[in-house]
């Protein structure tokens, strides 16, 4: 199967080039040209206003899944405690189920966990499927997969969401393969397509450089894992229904054993994975100047970074450098302190979600890429910010 362009019909509008997820179309001799990279996905066919893009690919029949009902959430618990992302997913599930006119169910596996069902109902589960078995004391892929397979086959859900945790990312692909359905990883947004009624799964791709919308048209349930912290929890008044599902499990079919579980404090994380980055430039003055940045980073659960100059001066280590020769970062909050914003530095941080610039020079180019700028001395602003956030945290959480 191939895709080609009828050059007589093509008016070089470039819509297909924009639509191509694979960068496989370019303009050549005044019309669109399909490169070898093309995977025949058909995205260009749909957007061409002149119907100049043609294919011999016959579209696959989309099966009728109108009998599949229900939005399921995997209620992940560790040591009898529900993970926060499970409740966040219940919040999103209520929204999706509302649009579809369907119900929300939570799937809870573990040992001596029946007291968690009330919390799941409180946060939006109409039904909780609860499986209690001694062999489920610790999470194990084979045990969980077998039981979820049984449950899915019996109740035939439409959508099944799991948190993208170390457990969710181990379990979801195993389950998806077992029950022969597609799976989308690490979604940051979910919605229902109003025309087709399918789940639209949005996730970062290509190292976070693009966002992709993914559909799961050929199998049910539509499975996705969702990043923790993205969706919002919503309590829901009313009652829920708990269904105790009898788990039959034999130790010899599980094939793994958890020998021990050890809790450890987090070590310093990678800049590219940091949610908050407090970055310093020449304006920080010297190595000691970074101390106030570190204090702010600590209260905001972030990491400290620096520009090329600060690394060359030896104020911070090279692995903390942001910019074209350093790392490209994409945190949710980037606070640029005493950074003028050379083009190389901007290239390394301009995809951050929110950018704050603090600089005494109002003409510094960093202000052009900032959401909020403060024209002031960082040695006044940064400690004040640390102080206010600390005070608020102490008041709210008592720590």
């Amino acid at each position, binding site marked *: 199967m191939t895709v080609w362009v009828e050059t007589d019909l093509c008016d070089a509008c470039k819509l297909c080039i*924009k639509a191509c997820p694979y*960068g496989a179309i370019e303009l050549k001799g005044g019309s669109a040209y399909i490169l070898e990279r093309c*995977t*025949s996905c058909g*995205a260009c066919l749909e957007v061409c206003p002149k119907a100049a893009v043609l294919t011999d690919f016959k579209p696959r029949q989309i099966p009728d899944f109108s009998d599949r009902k229900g939005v399921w959430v995997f209620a992940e618990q560790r040591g009898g405690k529900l993970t926060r992302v499970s409740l966040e997913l219940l919040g999103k599930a209520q929204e999706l189920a509302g649009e579809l006119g369907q119900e929300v169910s939570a799937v809870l596996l573990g040992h001596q966990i029946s007291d968690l069902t009330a919390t799941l109902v409180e946060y939006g589960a109409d039904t909780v499927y609860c499986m209690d078995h001694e062999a489920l004391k610790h999470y194990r*892929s*084979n045990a969980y997969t077998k039981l979820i397979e049984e449950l899915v086959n019996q109740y035939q859900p439409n959508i099944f969401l799991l948190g993208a*945790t*170390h457990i969710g990312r*181990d379990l979801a*692909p*195993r389950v*998806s*393969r077992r029950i022969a*359905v*597609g*799976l*989308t*990883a690490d979604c940051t947004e979910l919605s229902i397509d109003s025309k087709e009624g399918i789940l639209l*799964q949005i996730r970062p*791709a*290509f190292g976070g*450089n*693009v*966002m992709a*919308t*993914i*559909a799961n*048209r*050929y199998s049910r349930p539509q499975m996705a894992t969702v990043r923790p*912290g993205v969706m919002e929890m919503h309590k829901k008044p009313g009652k829920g229904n708990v269904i105790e599902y009898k788990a039959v499990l034999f130790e010899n079919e*599980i094939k*793994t054993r*958890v*020998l*021990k*579980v*050890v*809790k*450890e404090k987090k070590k310093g994380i990678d800049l590219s994975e940091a949610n*908050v980055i407090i970055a310093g430039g020449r304006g920080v003055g010297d190595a000691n100047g970074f101390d106030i940045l570190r204090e702010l980073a600590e209260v905001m*659960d972030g990491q400290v970074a620096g520009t090329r100059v600060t690394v060359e001066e030896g104020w911070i280590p090279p692995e903390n450098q942001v910019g074209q020769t350093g790392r*490209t970062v994409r945190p*949710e*909050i980037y606070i640029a302190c005493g950074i003028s914003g050379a083009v190389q530095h901007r290239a390394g941080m301009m*995809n951050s979600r*929110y950018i704050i610039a603090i600089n005494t020079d109002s003409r510094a180019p960093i202000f*052009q*890429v900032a*959401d*909020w*700028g403060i*024209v002031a001395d960082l040695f*006044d*602003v940064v400690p*004040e910010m640390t102080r*206010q*956030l600390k005070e*608020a945290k102490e008041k*709210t959480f008592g720590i």
Partner: protein
Amino acid sequence: MDIIVLVKQVPNTTDVKLDEKTGSLIREGLESILNPDDRHALEAAVQLKEATKGHVTVVSMGPPQAIEVLTEAIGMGVDQGILLSDTAFAGADTWATSSTLGKAIQQIGKFDLIICGRQAIDGDTAQIGPQVADYLHVPQVTYVAEIDNIDEKSVIVKRRLEDGYEMVESELPALLTVISEINKPRYPDVGKMIAACHEDASIKTWNAADIGVTVHEVGLAGSLTHVIKTYVPKFKRQGEIIEGDTKAVVRELIQKLGRSEGSTACKAVAAACRLEAS
């Protein structure tokens, strides 16, 4: 001990540049590399080979130029390479990819251990390992940070969790996905890499017919999920200068941050400061 390592050639996504005018990705000149986590998988396999007098086969699915990463693997000490390459494999999602890799592994035959990197930097899905394990009906342990002990029957590994780790024992054969913490990969030996480029070298290429799959099971046609749209996230910068005395300025900034949408870090600020959404 027979070990199979699954690797992928990926574009170096940390190096991606955007066309400032159109906002689209510049793909030309983007370097192709051996996926970083997979390098650790190779190192783990070669270390086990050295300790147990084992045999290591590296498998990759990709276009013909992906032979480069197999050559590199042989340079690290792997015994043989198999490249799964066919236009029919193109555009595969993880379902179709795991079918292809699973079929190929069945073709290879006996194995005690399969080792993969945790995830590839171009897709970041971390799905292939568990999906291949289920395809082959073998147990899996993901996020492996250390191989503590291994004998003919079982392996004991340290599995990394968000808040610590667990020690897991698994029967063999099994599949492990490893994280970078597990080892420091060696540099490939240039002599071995050059030898791998000879015609009679230990790298074979298999197509769809070689592994016995039809075009409907693999590639885009065999996929269950499809990308229906991609876009480059572009944020409208508010470009607002906050003025006033330090205390007031900071208070305003915190409020603005806390009321910003689409960020967990902002939500954390809002929660601490008890801000209501605007």
